[in-house]
């Protein structure tokens, strides 16, 4: 299965050098274990743009689609056989990035 892991934060681009180093070590471990799919940090939610392309003319709106006190400051996508493995791995990830994490399953592609 694949899981999306959101890094929960209430500040933006607030990672420290020590956290980045710890995340690098953790990512090496994900890669070595065959669990790595993708990961990235995200810019502040105020820099996002909402698109509605469903009508004749596209509508662009400034800002995040939902105003929240907390948001995703980055994310991982990992491969893990089940939730227990994902939780065990990302408990270490939480320690490394020094943030709370949300683990969310990706829907399996239709067979």
């Amino acid at each position, binding site marked *: 299965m694949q899981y999306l892991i959101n890094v929960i934060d209430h500040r933006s681009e607030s990672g420290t050098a020590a956290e980045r180093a710890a995340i690098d070590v953790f990512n090496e471990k994900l890669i070595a274990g065959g669990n790595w799919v993708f990961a990235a940090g995200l810019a502040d939610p105020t820099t996002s743009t909402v698109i509605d392309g469903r009508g004749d003319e596209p509508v662009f709106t400034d800002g995040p689609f939902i105003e929240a006190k907390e948001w995703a400051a980055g994310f991982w996508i990992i491969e893990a*056989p*089940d939730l*227990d493995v994902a939780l*065990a791995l990302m408990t270490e990830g939480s320690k490394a990035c020094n943030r709370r994490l949300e683990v969310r399953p990706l829907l399996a592609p239709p*067979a």
Partner: protein
Amino acid sequence: MSDIREALTRAHREEWARVVATLAKRFGNLDTAEDAAAEAFMTATERWPRDGIPPNPGAWLTTTATRKAIDRIRRESSRDARQRGAELLYDIETEPVGAIDDDRLRLLFICCHPALAMDARVALTLRMVGGLTVTEIAKAFLVQDTTMGARITRAKTKIATAGIPYRVPDTKDLPRRVSGVLAVLFLIFNEGYLATGPHTPPIREDLTAEAIRLTRLLHQLLLDDGEVTGMLGLMLLTDARRSARVSSQDALVPLAQQDRQLWDAALIAEGHALVRERLASGVAPGRYQLLAAINAVHTDGDATDWTQVVALYDQLVRLDGSPIVRLNRAIAVSEHDGAEEGLVLIDELGSDLAEYHAYHAARAKLLRRLGRDAASREAYDAAIKLAGNTAEIAYLSAQRESQD
């Protein structure tokens, strides 16, 4: 006819969890397992009166439920899924059935998984392992059938979608996961033992009995786990006092005033044996073993030996220094050293336990013993306002009045 009904009831009590667990493993889906098990028991109520009780009811139920599940999968599947279903059916690994490999244990661990909300864990455990109906569980927790049904469905969907695995946790995780299961069982027991709500009977024997039954099952599966043994001892020694705990006026009777003749001697003997077994192991006890030992002291001889109780609470506070444990230790100290000493300790907990009725009740009692009647009455008022159990409210109200 009554033989048949008895056989059906016993089969339900003894075999439900095994049938669900076996099917959950085989079909990899709790929903299928639950529905097929329910259908199999339904079929039994039709067939057994006509055809007689099968020689091995458990095997009969498992076979019938398996057929029901296969029928259902065939009926509902598209061709692709049908093929997958067929593969599933032929791809059964037979694992050795050692204690730790029991499917019912897997079922308990999946129902009590830490990624589920606590109320969902409780509901799922009672449904899947306990075999209670959704209506029974809804009634037990004073919510609508539809609410409880939705809670259980949501939990099952999360298990399937999020990939919560159907297996016994590895050795490294086992103690933590077992303690998670125990927390669920203890919550069910406590809701039975000190039921909340103005229209609920003060003691819910259905819930205490179910919690004990499930804990016995867990104990049978994990005989060497000290905390499981401790939990069973704790429940038995607590439940043994049930008949003496509520007066004919439906008021709670405190331990010291209970009629010990009403206590269940067999349960006490069994509980004491479990506590002795843990003591003999020489392994440092966990919190449930200490709580069981405290209850063993309470139920030993003609009166509680408070020196031993305080010593056990000292040990417990070192493991778990939470305000509620410290409150109980303070109450023991007040019995052993006097009201003054106890009150000093209780007053330290005011900021943490201001919303907890037992804190105010304990203060009220000690303030009265010290002759501080006005303050005591105020504390009784606070306790009555926060208490949720009808018998406890009746007891506290009577205590409050008795000093006016």
